[in-house]
Each structure stands twice: as C-alpha cells, then as structure tokens.
C-alpha cells in the first residue's frame, strides 16, 4: 500500500529503529511498510497515525477510487 511513511519519518528526524520502538514492531516491519511489502492492519495504521498525529488517509493512499455507477470499487 502506497504511503508517506518514509517522508514523515524523515521529517520527524526518526530512524526506522526509532519508529519501530514507538510502534512496538520490529525494524523489519517498518522497512516492509515503507517498501510496500506489507499492508498494515487497521490497528497498526491507527498506531502510525497516532505517532505522527495525522489522519490515516494522509499517511496511506487508498488503492480504491470512488465507487462507479454500479457501486463496485475499482
């Protein structure tokens, strides 16, 4: 899932290790999030949002467009 994690982390002057400790996950997990090798659970997404004090949709880019006429997500 595309995200702004690397940018936000750099803006806050944090290393992957720093962020992993605040989130209570491994450094590998932070790296996997940044390189889009892992899509976070809702719980982890909320923890990340709490660390940066931002809404989730400003950190993670929704992979879905607005519903089309038939109501199905693209």
């Amino acid at each position, binding site marked *: 899932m595309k995200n702004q994690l690397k940018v936000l982390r750099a803006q806050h002057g944090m290393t992957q290790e720093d962020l992993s400790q605040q989130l*209570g996950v491994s450094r590998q997990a932070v790296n996997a999030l940044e390189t889009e090798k892992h899509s976070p659970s809702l719980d982890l997404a909320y923890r990340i949002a709490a660390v940066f004090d931002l809404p989730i949709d400003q950190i993670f880019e929704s992979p879905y467009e607005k519903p089309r006429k038939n109501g199905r997500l693209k």
Partner: protein
Amino acid sequence: MTALSPSHLSQDQIRRQYVIRSSLFLAGYVAVNMAAIFGAFDDAKPRGAIALALVVAAPLAGHIWALLAYMRDADEFMRAVMARRFIVSSGITMALTCAWGFMESYAQAWHAPGFLMYPLFWLVHGAVSPFIRSSN
C-alpha cells in the same frame, strides 16, 4: 512519546526468548540422541524403547511450540512472513516425503527413516525463506 506496543515485551526480547527456547529444546534433543548413540539405553525393554522414542521426539514438539509462541508474540509483519514460510516449507516437505514414499513402494528406493522429515523441513525452510520476504 509513549510506545504503542500491544505487548509488554519488545520485539528484540521476543526474538531472544525464541532463540533461548529453541536452543534449550534442541540441546535436549542432541543430549538424548547422544546418550542413545553411546549406549545409555541399550538395555531398554520394549516399553522403555517406546518411552525413549517419545522422549527423543518431545524436544522437537517443544521446538515447534517455541516457534508458534514466537509467531504469536511477533509483530504482524513477522507473523505473516513466518506463517507463509512455514506453510510453503510444510507443503514442499510433505510433497517430497510423499514422493519418496511412493518411490520406496514402486521404484525400490532405499527406506528413509521418518525422523529425517524434521531436518528436511528446516532445510526446505532455509531454502525458501530468502524468497518469502513480503506479507502481500
């Protein structure tokens, strides 16, 4: 800022716990096998021999428990990656052992002892792990 971890242990502590538990169980496995190799159980009666076989296997069950406990306590990314590696390794090991079993039945291949399945599983696990590094 407060850590937002749901666990009271850090990921490093959880990993260390797994390494210690695994080392203890595998040391037990080696110790019982060494004792058997050097004849400590040579005079065991049939019932004793069955007990010995179970005692040798018990540390391996303990090792699997240590791994499952690690998966339970690890963060969601590590848990997902470990689960994928475990499933793929188990599948390949089962396919290989089944294939070998049929080769024994139909192609007179030499008999492979069942206890080789455990080291084979870890061998396969080691081979597939570098290729499974994503949870997606």
